[in-house]
């Protein structure tokens, strides 16, 4: 049966309990020195996948 109120659009998942990042986390996501370290870690992880999986 079609929902009579299309704009509402039916069941939307309840995300109200999903954790929200703290100010500190948001700052870290933008911090250039920290993200440079994450960039290196990410590339190391990809290289590990390449070596183990190819």
């Amino acid at each position, binding site marked *: 049966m*079609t929902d009579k109120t299309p704009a509402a659009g*039916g069941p939307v*998942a309840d995300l109200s309990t*999903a954790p929200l990042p703290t100010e500190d986390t948001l700052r870290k*996501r*933008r911090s250039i020195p920290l993200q440079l370290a994450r960039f290196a870690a*990410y590339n190391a992880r*990809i290289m590990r*996948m390449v070596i*183990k999986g190819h």
Partner: protein
Amino acid sequence: MADVVILGAGISGHTAALHLRRKLGRGSEHTVTVVSPNSKWNWIPSNIWVGVGKMGKPDVVFPLEPVYRKKGIGFRQAKAVALWPEGDADDPRGAVDVEYTGQGRAGTTERIRYDYLVNATGPKLRFEATPGLGPDGHSLSVCTADHATEAARSLTETIERLRAGEEQTLVVGMGHGTCTCEGAAFEYVFNVDHELREAGVRDRARLVYLTNEERLGDFGVDGMTFEEQGFQTSSEMWTASLFRERGVEAILGAHVTKVEEGVVHYETLDGEFHALAFDFAMLLPPFGGVGLAAYDAEGGDITDRLFAPSGFMKVDADYTAKPYEEWRAQDWPETYQTPGYDNIFAVGIAFAPPHQISRPRTSANGTPIAPAPPRTGMPSGVMGKTAAMTIYDRIKHGAHAEAHRASMAHMGAACVASAGADLRTGSAAAMTMMPVVPDYARYPTGRDLAATRGEIGLSGHWVKLMLHHLFLHKAKARLGWQFIPE
């Protein structure tokens, strides 16, 4: 002398052609010929950026012919239509019928003989599976660079209406209950959110992620377990957190039944039917095989022997039907060789998977609603190279040389949703998983926790940009291309 024919010039076929030519040597007597209907190569992951106007089509495509000329690879701008794996009445060698789409021969056909064949034809975009779906219907796509260009145009118009004070609903997701490529829709919704914020109109926009996944973070791989700060968390929590933070609404376990002008109709796992009005909708199509036929030497139809009903080509997978609880990593193919023909391989999206990776589900009305298994870029490239190495060994050392192996139960994958044009202000949500197909016999959570991670931050944006430039460099076969991993 051996003739190798590769069908398809996407990630897997192009990788196979370049490596095979490199190994065989440019001046060798052996031929490598690529058959593909499109004259251009497309770095498909960057279509996401084209779809929000951050890049143009010329940034993500380049002509194939000059690369193949430089490397000594033959190129037929044509689409394969039929295989003759046992040859025909004139010649016992295998052959493939192709129909030209360019090179001044559009519409003409040719039968090309081969000693080895690689089927890397990728997906057929099956918009027709859902009435009204796709650019010829009422929704948009980012699967090709042209589709993405159209999506960007429509997004700009939507943003203009938001600027003018109107409220708008934007829907991004999957256009059918059996779609794959949830990662691409996730990337796109992340980018659309970013664009709306940049334009200062996010508060007037309702952004909805409509998906066939039963829970967020499934991504067609049955979700992932992450390890963070001494705890095991899930890709579900990671994705839900990101959506909550960005105000993206999620509709889960949905099978789109039809798309009308401004309205998407869908069924949910509980068997209820719903409709959602939209002003902008980017909904991906389900994938199928490109629909090649196959004949024996007498012209008898043997399509069923080589291809699954989905149109994907059968390979060395275990296709025995069994329940989810009995699925094993070993069900997945390793050599990509077609049963009964050790000179035919199917790689990338073209091979028939043994089953899904996500738990199969049906709605209360019996409609299947479950993601099909993704075959992402890294595994597709590795499979192409693996087939090329097997063919090289067989040409050099005889037809009985051992096949090289690369299972998706050993390979990893990366999915980076990255937004923004600027190195300092972009943002990204990046995932890596290893292996793609979980192996509970090797890892308690199915995957290697040291390599399976979700991260949010600027660094993912740099990774995505780096991959864009590296893979275009590699595909253009520029200096050192062979050292860039698949």
